[in-house]
């Protein structure tokens, strides 16, 4: 549905997008994840035909975004970072204007407007002037604008920015409901959003793609070896000594854990080694109480940090 091949965009000396390639299949939700200024918006603008790439090609529904720009724009709904709304228009007349410039025949207008308003829960704001709406409602009007003409491809640049938690959940559900019949690309720097809504994730940093995979694969693939957390009550030095001698343990870190003078340790093991039984046996052997022993999984947050910070070693596991 969407094919991006070796796309580069530079502004003078700076390169915003650097040889990026990826594809999106029909009906899929692709998440675009990266820190601010990573090149997410630029990539989306190239896909929507807003700006041309410096080199490389991108195709949407088989049409080249540069050569057949008008054809591509017919198939796309796009929500830019700031909702592109006219403050002096009512929600309804704004959506009708959008339908007119998207070349949707007039007889379909009222049905399409009703549908978009229903999907974005804007029914009661239909006749309200857009300038009187709150930030979250404006964002929803922007979202309605992106899907009012029922496009094949919907591109959303940070769709949940400015929404309250309840609205965020509504928008995520809406996006999930749209998948299947629509192909969706959304960008975000909020990690849970990606793991909750997307089928696949493209992690982009400094204009380059750092990883492309499903959220699940990314999590397990990057974990590599295993990391476990032990909580016990023992002298720190002795515990460190003991755990370091467990076969398979690569790195041990001991620190204060919880209340009552508990001591916690995290143990990284080499790939394919499960050290949990060994660790438990050793501690019990010493007669120390074992309060907790569990495997830690790296969250998308850690993966993101690993991939996007220069020193991957600084990535810390979350509990």
């Amino acid at each position: 549905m969407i094919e991006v091949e070796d796309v580069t965009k530079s502004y003078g000396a700076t390169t915003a997008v650097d040889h990026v390639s990826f594809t999106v299949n029909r009906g899929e939700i692709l998440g675009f994840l990266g820190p601010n200024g990573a090149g997410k918006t630029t990539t989306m603008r190239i896909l929507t035909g807003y700006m041309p790439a410096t080199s490389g090609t991108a195709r949407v529904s088989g049409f080249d975004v540069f050569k057949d720009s008008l054809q591509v724009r017919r198939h796309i709904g796009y929500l830019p970072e700031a909702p592109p709304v006219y403050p002096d228009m009512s929600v309804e007349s704004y959506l009708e204007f959008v339908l007119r410039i998207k070349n949707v025949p007039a007889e379909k207008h009222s049905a399409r407007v009703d549908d978009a308003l229903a999907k974005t829960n804007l029914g009661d704001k239909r006749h309200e002037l857009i300038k009187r709406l709150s930030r979250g409602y404006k964002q929803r009007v922007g979202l309605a604008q992106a899907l009012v003409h029922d496009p094949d491809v919907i591109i959303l640049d940070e769709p949940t920015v400015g929404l309250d938690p309840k609205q965020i959940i509504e928008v995520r559900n809406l996006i999930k409901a749209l998948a299947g019949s629509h192909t969706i690309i959304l960008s975000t720097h909020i990690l849970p959003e990606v793991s909750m809504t997307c089928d696949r994730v493209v992690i982009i940093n400094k204009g380059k793609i750092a990883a492309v995979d499903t959220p699940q694969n990314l999590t397990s693939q990057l974990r590599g070896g295993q990391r476990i957390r032990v909580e016990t009550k023992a002298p720190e030095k002795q515990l460190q000594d003991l755990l370091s001698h467990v076969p398979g343990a690569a790195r041990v870190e001991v620190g204060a854990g919880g209340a009552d003078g508990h001591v916690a340790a995290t143990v990284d093991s080499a790939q394919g080694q499960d050290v949990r039984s060994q660790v438990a046996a050793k501690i019990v052997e010493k007669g120390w109480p074992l309060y907790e022993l569990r495997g830690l999984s790296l969250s998308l947050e850690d993966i993101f940090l690993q991939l996007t910070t220069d020193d991957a070693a600084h990535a810390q596991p979350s509990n």
Partner: protein
Amino acid sequence: MRSIYAIYRKEMGHYFVSPIAYVVVGLFLILCGFFFNLYLGDAMRAAMEAQMQGAQFGMASNFDVPGEVIRAFLGVLALFLLFFMPMVTMGIFSDERRRGTMELLMTSPITETQIVLGKFFASFTLFLVMLLPTASYILFMWVKSEPMPPLRVVGAGYLGLLLFGGALLALGSFLSSLTENPIIAAVLTFGAFLLLWALDFGSSGAASTVESVVHYLSVINHYQGFTQGVIDTSALVYYVSFMVLFIFLTVRSVDSMRWRRA
């Protein structure tokens, strides 16, 4: 064509739903009414004096009151346009850029030419709405004055105004496409209008080739003929090519937004 109309309709809504149209048109008409009244009074006084002098020396007066009033009125209308057009054009593109709605237009299946033309026609319509009520003054003279107002001057004068105003609108919308800030657009536009106007001063002697070229470029110079009831082909060509040039440049400028860093 449908896309041009979609843009046109949106722009008309923008002018007439927001206070822009009412403020611009209203103020313009108040000033027009004031100056028309002033010129009418002046011309009638002058005619009276001429008649008295004529009676003294036993000659018939041939002071043409309606002709004088219309010529003076057409002149001041053009001057008002110099001040009012920048207010009409300042937001045409800069507002869209500032609000980010340009991104919507430019990712929709419409061409830059359609966007620019739709907006130009809408601003021209607003200009017609400004101008139309001034026809009532002419109508008033038509009914009340003796002799009748010179039709040729009225017709040519209004044609000249339309061309002059259209040229200013084209230039103004081009300058509006260069910046995100409507105030900067307005100042640029006003400065450019004034400069094109002032080209006429100091070059009226037209001694050298350069001076005559500069004189030709002056946007007001070609208008003078129309207020005398003369439709000069070179003036027609000047205004039409001026409009086409700046509409073309606006299309290029809008297109170039794609290549600039937003």
